[in-house]
């Protein structure tokens, strides 16, 4: 009985925070646009009883999904989001791995301090930190003024409102999500393995590739998913730092929802985004599971 309760809790959690909202969004995606409050029809009217229920379901259809296939905008936006998410994940890994490595190899008494430094930016609002980047990257911003002052450039660089600014913003924001799991896996590593390798005549570089890299694989995979999954649907960073050419599905969704006031199509876009994300989320879960089993 107690066991049943323990199993039930996570499922109730899933039901309340995932399944119910999903069903609502899915229902709206099958509805039609209307100029009313709320701006779609049909709405379930329980007072009409069975007949109301039947006519409610009759009016739902997949028209909005057909609409999504008819316009190149949508799949281009999905692809572009995937591309931006993949590149950002690779860049974050490139920047994050050396940091995590340095942290794990630092003297033990420094490590809590270094960890603290990685987590510290979370103490300020995410929005404010992205705004700060606008001040840094603007044409008359801090970075350009510094570079002009040093004489490295003679014309200000245009970085804000380009894809480059989006990459900088994403790498900066999601870096801790990459560093922490890699650090965790590196810190657990038994360093005597490296000593053994060196004793047996292995160079430091090949020792890294043969021992450290495979042992930190789980951390790299976990970190990559933690960056990749939220980046696909990212809206705030591209809308603040990106320009008109930055095409991401989060912005398309915003346009459908706010500019077109077309909740049904916006919901259809969201449902498909979720379906796309389910694959990496399942892979992520598998990876976690594997790691737990390896640890257990």
């Amino acid at each position, binding site marked *: 009985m107690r066991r049943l309760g323990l199993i039930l809790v996570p499922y109730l959690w899933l039901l309340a925070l995932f399944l119910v909202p999903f069903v609502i969004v899915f229902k709206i995606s099958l509805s039609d*646009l209307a*100029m*009313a*409050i*709320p*701006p779609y029809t049909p709405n379930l009217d329980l007072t009409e009883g069975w007949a109301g229920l039947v006519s409610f379901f009759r009016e739902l259809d997949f028209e909005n999904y057909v609409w999504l296939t008819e*316009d*190149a*905008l949508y799949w*281009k*936006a999905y692809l572009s989001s995937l591309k931006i998410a993949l590149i950002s994940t690779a860049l974050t890994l490139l920047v994050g791995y050396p940091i995590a490595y340095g942290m794990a190899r630092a003297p033990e008494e420094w490590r809590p301090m270094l960890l603290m430094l990685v987590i510290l930016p979370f103490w300020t609002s995410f929005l404010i930190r992205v705004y700060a980047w606008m001040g840094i990257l*603007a*044409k*008359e*911003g801090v970075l350009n003024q510094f570079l002009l002052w040093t004489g490295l450039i003679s014309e200000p660089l*245009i970085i804000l*409102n380009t894809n480059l600014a989006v990459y900088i913003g994403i790498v900066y924001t999601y870096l801790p999500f990459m560093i922490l799991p890699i650090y965790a896996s590196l810190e657990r590593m038994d360093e005597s393995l490296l000593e053994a390798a060196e004793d047996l005549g292995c160079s430091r570089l090949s020792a890294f590739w043969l021992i450290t890299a495979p042992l930190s694989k789980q951390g790299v995979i976990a970190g990559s998913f933690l960056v990749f999954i939220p980046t696909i649907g990212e809206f705030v960073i591209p809308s603040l730092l990106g*320009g*008109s*050419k930055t*095409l991401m599905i989060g912005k*398309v969704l915003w*346009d459908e*929802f*706010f*500019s*077109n*006031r*077309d909740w049904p199509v916006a919901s259809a876009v969201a449902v498909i985004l979720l379906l796309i994300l389910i694959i990496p989320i399942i892979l992520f879960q598998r990876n976690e599971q594997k790691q737990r089993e390896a640890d257990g």
Partner: protein
Amino acid sequence: MKKTLLTLTAGVAMSAMAAAAEEVRVYNWSDYIDEDLLTKFTEETGIKLIYDVFDSNDVLETKMLAGKSGYDVVVPSGTFLQRQISAGAFQKLDKSKLPNAANMWDVIEARTSKYDPGNEYSINYMWGTTGIGVNTGQVTEILGEDAPITSLALIFDPANAEKLAACGIHMLDAADEMIPAALAYLGLNPDSHDTKDIAKAEEVLAAVSPHIQKFHSSEYINGLANGDICVAIGWSGDILQARDRAWEAENGVELAYNAPSEGAMMWFDQMAIPVDAPNADAAHTFLNFIMDAGNMAAASNYVYYANGNKASQPMLEEDVIGDPAIYPDEATLGNLYTTTPYPPKVQRVVTRTWTKIKSGI
């Protein structure tokens, strides 16, 4: 954990108490009021004022159509107001609670009744035009002394836009403003709902789109004032505010606003009370406070927008009432146009066109 729970409960209890005291929640455009007025309102009436801002009609409309926004006073522009009235989003004003309505300007009321027949649901807050803000120093340096700074050709002619791209052009992220502007540039009816005309407007905008740094409806105020950008199509008062900020900063940025010679859109921001406003009485008190001649004059003197309040005019500063960019003279007034809401099918085409213009897809 227990402690957090306790503080949480205390917080909930406190907010419940605050709700018992009279309050009013206002949702207005960003950079759109003299904030001293907000404290003055609470001092005079004892009503707690919660003031939030937005920068696009789309965001406001989405909140209105979702219902139960929690706001008591909102400020949609004309065409949006009209559409939201038809969706049943607003309640009729109780004129007996608005004695200051006598201060309003009949000329503006006649125009706003196009959107809200008889002005039953709304009062005019501010009105203005959509035009061109120019950093005169940078633009004349690039295009020469005879740069067409009063014409839409400054931006809509790709030859000009290409040269100005280096110093930065911003455009409003509002299809219902930019498509009429492109139609005016072509000499067509700016209020056209014909999709063929919209396609012609698209050609104009798509040709210059690669040279536009950003489509955004509020960043250009800071951008112009700091010298980050040199041209923006934006709202009159916002550009005049940018001009003022640059003056105050003494950063050498000289800005000018012009209503385009091809015709400029005239728009009206109307205060209305949502149908499900929790504090409709306090909302009326707020509207009446805003319609006070002295208060309205203070607001206009601060934000550089014209208002629909006749009695406030003697109290306006000379650089507001005397500036034809704010209170247009007869000649400019004849050159202003207004628009009406697009029907849903055309709206779809307009928004899709706009996305295509912005992203190239």
